[in-house]
């Protein structure tokens, strides 16, 4: 009876709250989205925005209703603060909550005049393996321009942390994860965005044109202005660059509910997929390849003679292009060579004086040719939108030294070399918090087998033009057995390595990495271990199936760590979300060898 009453009461209560929510303009989806109010689970709301100047009511951060009243009062008066809130003004006007005109605001008018908005585009930039904060790619918005010319004159609107140049310090990692920085919007010309990503960091850019009505576009610009005055605590995984864009797009079209999809982590690519999944939101996709991708694509189109002439120019400064007669081909070679010289300068492979000299050689030679080049530009890439999802669950069964086991593992993010590579940066692996549990049959025990804190691998082949370093960073907790005592226990392991990758062809790569090892655990002799070693491997990627086979030798401070390990992993993708894998590992260790085979099903979601 009591329970029934309670049930009746709560149904009644929530229904009443619903009615209030639907009727009150203070709890309308539009107002809540404009104030970046997020439900707190107890019927209360709190805004993601942290700066005081974003709120007019003293309790405005937690009280949408008082904030609306204060906003109505603001526009009834003459306060200069009205100029901060053009987005809210549009809301009041639409719902007839004010009859006042929007004031003359010189700076806001200049903002609109400079932007000359014509539309909104969501930009996704590829992973950048040389900076820990860019491993997952990045997203920003572009306010398309109606200016004559091209969209180079549009503006990028970037939400980022104000880190005061500490990006490469430990402090950055700590503060970035714990909300020690403030984040906010900045705006810069799109040509600057392109220079940064395409030309300096060599990252592809994907442009998703959003289908906004003229009213929505007005509201977007107005809201960008008001949210651009404000700041929020920045959290690298949750309240990050990509997440704030979701709330900002929701403010323009609350029915999108984009922010709802990201209660915990907001991986840039996932947010782009969420945007793409909303009906009627994306009207077109455009690809802007990186400078490096463009150079590679052009090089591929050259015939043998042209390649020789091209390499003679960029390597030996022989700009005669002997052996090539066709003027169009010459033009193409010189334009490619020029781009390569620009690449080298950015990569610090050239001094400024050499760079200028070579640039001008290419320019003057190109200028002498009347004809246009004929090469095709790179128009399409493997769209990251259609890549596998970042979360992965693995269900497997295997045999370890004759003992059968079953295992389950879960990885929240992001991509392994043997996962379907479509839409990912080829050769780049980033695994976060991969956790594996195992049940062993004979001993009938279930154990945490392995916990990968972070695993990063970057294999990047060297060729005639590019000489990138391949590297790996691993931090994990593993269940291991001390062969001396036959005791099992957990060890914490750190491994850092660097080396080179060579491509036999498009599909097959060889790599060699030298590594240093450090371990800590109660089962280890003296609790600690240090080591040096090398890994030689082959990585084959034929799209739907991938293979990695490697040999690893470790020389350690004690016998426990001295190992020779052979590993092979073959994976076949049934579709973008499912794959089957077979793994084999053989480890020679202190007279006690380990022999393990595993077959598994991988599911991406």
């Amino acid at each position, binding site marked *: 009876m009591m329970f029934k009453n309670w049930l009746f009461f709560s149904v009644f209560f929530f229904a009443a709250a619903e009615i209030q929510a639907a009727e009150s303009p203070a709890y309308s989806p539009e107002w809540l989205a404009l104030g970046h109010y997020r439900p707190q689970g107890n019927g209360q709301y709190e805004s993601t925005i942290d700066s005081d100047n974003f709120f007019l009511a003293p309790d405005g951060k937690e009280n949408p209703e008082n904030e609306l009243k204060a906003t109505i009062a603001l526009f009834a008066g003459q306060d200069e603060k009205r100029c901060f809130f053009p987005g809210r003004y549009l809301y009041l006007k639409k719902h007839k909550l004010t009859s006042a005109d929007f004031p003359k605001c010189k700076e806001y008018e200049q903002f609109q005049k400079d932007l000359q908005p014509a539309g909104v585009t969501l930009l996704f930039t590829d992973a950048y393996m040389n900076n820990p904060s860019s491993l997952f790619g990045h997203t920003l918005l572009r306010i398309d321009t109606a200016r004559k010319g091209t969209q180079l004159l549009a503006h990028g609107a970037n939400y980022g942390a104000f880190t005061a140049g500490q990006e490469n310090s430990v402090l950055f990692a700590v503060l970035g994860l714990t909300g020690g920085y403030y984040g906010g919007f900045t705006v810069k*010309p799109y040509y600057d965005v392109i220079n940064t990503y395409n030309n300096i960091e060599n990252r592809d850019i994907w442009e998703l044109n959003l289908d906004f009505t003229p009213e929505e576009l007005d509201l977007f610009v107005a809201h960008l*202005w008001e949210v651009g005055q404000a700041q929020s605590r920045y959290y690298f995984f949750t309240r990050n660059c990509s997440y704030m864009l979701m709330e900002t797009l929701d403010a323009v079209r609350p029915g999108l509910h984009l922010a709802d999809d990201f209660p915990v982590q907001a991986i840039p690519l996932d947010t782009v997929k969420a945007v793409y999944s909303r009906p009627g939101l994306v009207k077109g996709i455009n690809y802007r390849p990186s400078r490096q991708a463009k150079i590679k694509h052009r090089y591929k189109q050259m015939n043998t003679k042209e390649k020789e002439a091209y390499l003679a120019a960029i390597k030996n400064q022989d700009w005669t292009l002997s052996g090539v007669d066709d003027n169009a081909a010459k033009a193409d070679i010189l*334009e490619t060579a020029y781009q390569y010289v620009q690449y080298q300068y950015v990569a610090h492979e050239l001094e400024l004086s050499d760079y200028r000299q070579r640039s001008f050689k290419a320019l*003057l030679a*190109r200028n002498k040719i009347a004809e*246009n080049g004929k090469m095709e530009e790179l128009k399409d890439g493997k769209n990251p939108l259609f890549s596998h999802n970042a979360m992965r669950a693995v269900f497997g069964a295997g045999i370890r030294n004759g003992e059968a086991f079953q295992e389950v593992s879960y990885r929240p993010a992001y991509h392994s070399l043997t996962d379907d590579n479509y839409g990912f940066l080829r050769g780049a692996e980033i695994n976060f918090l991969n956790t594996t549990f195992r049940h062993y049959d004979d001993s009938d025990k279930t154990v945490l087998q392995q916990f990968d804190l972070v695993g990063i691998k970057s294999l990047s082949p060297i060729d005639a033009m590019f000489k990138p370093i391949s590297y790996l960073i691993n931090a994990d907790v593993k269940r291991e057995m001390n062969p001396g005592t036959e005791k099992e226990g957990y060890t914490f392991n750190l491994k850092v390595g660097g080396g080179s990758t060579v491509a036999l062809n498009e599909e097959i790569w060889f790599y060699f990495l030298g590594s240093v090892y450090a371990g800590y655990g109660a089962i280890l002799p003296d609790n600690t271990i240090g080591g040096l070693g090398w890994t030689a491997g082959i990585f084959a990627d034929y799209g739907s199936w991938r293979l990695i086979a490697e040999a690893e030798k470790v020389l350690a401070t004690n016998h426990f760590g001295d190992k020779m390990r052979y590993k092979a992993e073959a994976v076949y993708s049934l579709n973008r979300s499912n794959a089957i894998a077979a793994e084999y590992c053989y480890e020679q260790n202190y007279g006690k060898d380990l022999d393990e085979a595993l077959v598994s099903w991988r599911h991406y979601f």
Partner: protein
Amino acid sequence: MKKLYLAVMLLGGAMMAASNAGAVDSTGCGLGSMAWRGQSGIGPQVLAATTNGLFGTQTFGITFGTSGCDPNGRITGGTGRMTLAFLENNMEQYAMDAAAGRGETIDTLAGILNMDSEKLGEISKTNFAYLFADENVDAVQVTLNLLELVQNA
């Protein structure tokens, strides 16, 4: 004489922008700066610390993130200032497009200069050696040369 006049106009514009850069206003990173007026605390300080120098000094080469947090964070002003700001940031791309007589920077500059893109491509290609006299050329010089060529075309 005409060239001198153009130079004075351009540099005057650049200096005005530069003097703005010193004011508190400039810490807006392209977005409105009003919120920071008279405020202290982490936000304004960080923004002020990252404020970059202004244009007018870029010699031939690639600019590494110039217009982050300065008044140049937005495309603004008249034809001269826009042309200069664009070439400050895209000189090496324009150099190749000028040598070839076509390309994205030519399409963009044609928009800024309100002229036909093909025509600008032709002018740029024909007068490449004049536009980019030697490898120590700077953006102000290229801008002045280009504006002069376009005016006389």
